[in-house]
């Protein structure tokens, strides 16, 4: 068994995806239409395998990353991109979270500054009713 595995490795029959392979990296940017949370580079679905085959073929033909991504968005729409474009609605996807965080921080700081001053300590009186009212007002 070990000898067979070694032989297969020597013959190059067992290969792992090269993480620096440009076609593999492009596949990482495309959403599998079947396993929708996965890129086609990782999805085991038949459609993903066909799509990766198309990516490799187009890359081998000298097509650029942009041309390959456009090929798939023409058929599936921008939905197929795992990284939204930085134009149109995609612009909001990229800018809204950091802008929202900055606005939230600004609002939090503003409301913190407006917090009412601490009430001065008033010693208790002999009247328990008055103490209760004072405590109610100060809380």
């Amino acid at each position, binding site marked *: 068994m070990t000898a067979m595995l070694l032989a297969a490795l020597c013959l190059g029959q067992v290969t792992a995806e090269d993480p620096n392979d440009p076609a593999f990296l492009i596949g990482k940017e495309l959403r599998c*239409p*079947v396993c*929708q949370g996965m890129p086609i580079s990782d999805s085991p679905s*038949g*459609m993903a395998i*066909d*799509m990766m*085959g*198309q990516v490799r073929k187009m890359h081998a033909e000298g097509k650029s990353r942009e041309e390959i991504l456009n090929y*798939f*968005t*023409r*058929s*599936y*729409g921008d*939905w197929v991109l795992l990284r939204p474009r930085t134009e149109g609605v995609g612009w909001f996807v990229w800018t809204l979270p950091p802008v*929202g965080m900055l*606005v939230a921080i600004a*609002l939090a700081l503003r*409301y913190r500054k407006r917090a009412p001053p601490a009430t001065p300590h008033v010693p208790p009186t002999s009247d328990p009713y008055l103490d209760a009212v004072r405590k109610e007002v100060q809380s």
Partner: protein
Amino acid sequence: MNWKRALIPALIIAPLVIILARSFGTDPRALPSVLVQQQAPDFVLTDLDGNRIDTQALRGKPLVLNFWSTWCEPCKAEHSLLQDAAQRWGDQVHFFGVVYQDTADNIRRYLEARPTPYPHLVDPEGRVAIEHGVAGVPESFFIDAQGRVVHKQTGVLTRDVINETLRALTGGTP
């Protein structure tokens, strides 16, 4: 209540709620087709008998493309509807089945018992399926005489969908 304090968070949250609420009632896995009202991709494929089919040469008559497989039970469920539709509308409309993630031999064996009056095309490497934005089967495309996609059906076809769409495409009755 300090309405001014509530206004800014409301202005931020309200658009988000509206955007999310628009998704209620929709199938989260359904892919809207970007090809509807656009030119369908032209292609050249061969049928099971080796005949070459060029969709560009078929312009002038509406076209129904049905992506299907023998391992797909919903595909088999709509098969009889397509057989019937092809017999009724076949003079006015081209019908083609496109083999998806399956082999020609499987399709031949299946069709031996359930013949259809229209050709089935072999799509090696799924290129035509990809160019039509197919995510699974069955999916059907109704294309007008000028090559424009007028309707994409994701999932099983119904008799009503077929008849209404073909009536609109042909402007008549079968």
